[in-house]
């Protein structure tokens, strides 16, 4: 901050830092490339938590049968009740005792309808709808995740539908599960996934005029201009430096 710069908006121009007159550096020294992040570690360590470490992305594989537990029954029941099974189901993954069915996005509402209504499936409750952004790992990076609960059989299953950021459309399941209403709005708000057929797809947590979808991986944390005297909160990786 220099003195010849005119004061704007009543913000007082800061006086010269006390250290500047006593010979100590008034500003932080410029960050050396090797000194980024905490304690100057680079390359190996993700010690800062903000290092932006690039990790290899694994691809999710189809699980071999038998899956064990009730998962085989659920799959067989869905295959029997839903004629387009082979076309609609991309992958069946069993991991950590949980069943995930990867569904073609355009089929998601149909599959939910069958999952809810078929007497051998009876997933009456849609527990949760949310999104995950697999940026860089999947060409269709935006995954919408549905957690279905069967109260009759006490079972849980996860449906996952992947769409691309360029064409983020998939049918809304609100006609099958009205509880998905707000949760789809939240997923739209946070990830920009557009649920076709949703009764009123508007932002729900962020302000209506917000730009961007905050939970996407390419959306920074912080660094958002604050509407107060031109102040700005720097993103966390630029917020502090341990030199």
């Amino acid at each position, binding site marked *: 901050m220099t003195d010849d710069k005119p004061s704007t908006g009543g913000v007082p121009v800061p006086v010269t830092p006390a250290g500047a007159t006593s010979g100590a550096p008034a500003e932080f020294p410029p960050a050396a490339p090797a000194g980024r992040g*905490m304690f100057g570690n680079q390359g190996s*360590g*993700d*010690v*800062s*938590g*903000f290092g932006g*470490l690039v*990790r290899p*992305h*694994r691809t999710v594989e189809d699980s071999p049968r038998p899956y064990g537990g009730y998962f085989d029954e659920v799959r067989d029941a869905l295959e029997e009740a839903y004629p387009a099974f082979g076309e609609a189901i991309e992958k069946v993954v069993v*991991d*950590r*005792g*949980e069943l*995930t069915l990867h569904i073609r996005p355009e089929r998601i509402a149909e599959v939910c309808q069958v999952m809810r209504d078929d007497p051998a499936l009876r997933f*009456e*409750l*849609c*527990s*949760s709808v*949310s*999104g*995950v*952004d697999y940026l860089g*790992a999947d060409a269709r990076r935006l995954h919408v*995740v549905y*957690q279905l*609960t069967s*109260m009759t059989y*006490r079972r*849980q299953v*996860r449906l996952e539908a992947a769409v691309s950021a360029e064409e983020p459309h998939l049918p809304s399941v609100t006609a099958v*599960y*009205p*509880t*998905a*209403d*707000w*949760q789809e709005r*939240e997923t739209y708000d*946070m990830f920009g996934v557009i649920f076709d057929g949703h009764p009123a797809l508007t*932002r*729900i*947590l*962020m*302000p209506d005029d917000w730009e961007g979808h*905050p*939970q996407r991986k390419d959306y920074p*944390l912080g660094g958002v201009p604050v509407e107060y005297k031109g102040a700005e909160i720097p993103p*966390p990786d630029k917020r502090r430096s341990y030199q």
Partner: protein
Amino acid sequence: MTASNYATERETTEGRVFNVTGGDWDDVVSGVDPINEGRIVVNMGPQHPSTHGVLRLILELEGETVREARSVVGYLHTGIEKNLEYRNWVQGSTFVTRMDYLSPIFNETAYSLAVEKLLGIEEQITERATTIRVLMMELNRISSHLVWVATTAMELGAINMMLYGFREREYILEIFELITGLRMNHAYVRPGGVAQDVPDEAIVKIRDFLTLMPKRLKEYEDLLSGQPIWLERTQNVAVLDVTGCLALGVTGPVLRSAGLAWDLRKTMPYCGYETYEFDVPTHPDGDVWGRYLVRLAEIRESLKLVEQALDRLKPGPVMVADKKIAWPAQLAIGVDGMGNSLEHVAKIMGQSMESLIHHFKLVTEGFRVPPGQVYVAVESPRGELGVHAVSDGGTRPYRVHYREPSFVNLQALPAMAEGGLIADVIAGGASLDPVMGGCDR
């Protein structure tokens, strides 16, 4: 007065202003009875004493009858889920405890269970840690229900109940302070166990509470259960049946008050709840009165659970043995609150270089979690609290989503309120027990 049918205008510094007068406006206005015929739109909130936080309700009223109700949420959105992605897995406990501030232990436990499932160490969690989790959760359920009965009674006109409810909640908060060091935002339940052991004074205090609370519950019932105004205001008000609850995803005491005994502690047990003896109270009517009875009965069941948990509390470790996961710091309560145990600091600083390195790596970098995704649900005082956690193999969560019962349950408010009286919006909204910190996250 001009005979013109056009509105008169005048120039101001802000621009041109038109006065809407003339025509048959006066006739139109005199023909409408604004009290009985006009529909008016009322904004209730976002700052309103009876909306349980910054909830905004847009009510379209016809006289005193609510024709349409819409709720607007998001005023307390703090981006906790996004922030979690920038901290290591253990630091997550500190964030999630701040979501639903009336049931922090449940947020922490659900998160810890999810991380443990991702790590594949559910079997290694010690018995004492699990028992302490159950103990803390049930105490927290009591304190949350006490706030519910206190605030709801206040909103419906029983101010004295508010004082009693908060008085007993204070007792539980003192127990929490004794155990965790804090009244709220505990970050006590951590991935791998709990932050530190329960001190003996706390056990004594909990035992005292167990003898005190049944008497106090009796007092509440004497105050409210037979009171004609309370009955008028709650019976057959804001009815939602099982079908409505399931369609709208409503779980917890509201669903149970409609007659379906769906409680995750019984139906999909976790933390060893299947080994405890307790009942799931239900009520057939699905009204505010039923929700009141169910919550009071749940406090009694929670007292039973707390007692059983206390009896089971055998000495033992409260953190997993795996030193690559277990939080290395030992905490102790000093005169100025909870902090690092001086003994532990002296040991790692003075005696063992390796444990200092280990401590440093685990605290700054954190442990790695194998890639994958899990969904873990627990029965919070408000219903199904689910955590969907995704790991990409790193030291930080790739994504954590909270299925918040407050958020999901609030969708049911129009179904409860529309067609009823405006005063019953308060009763219905309160009976859902929304906590906006959890709802908006």
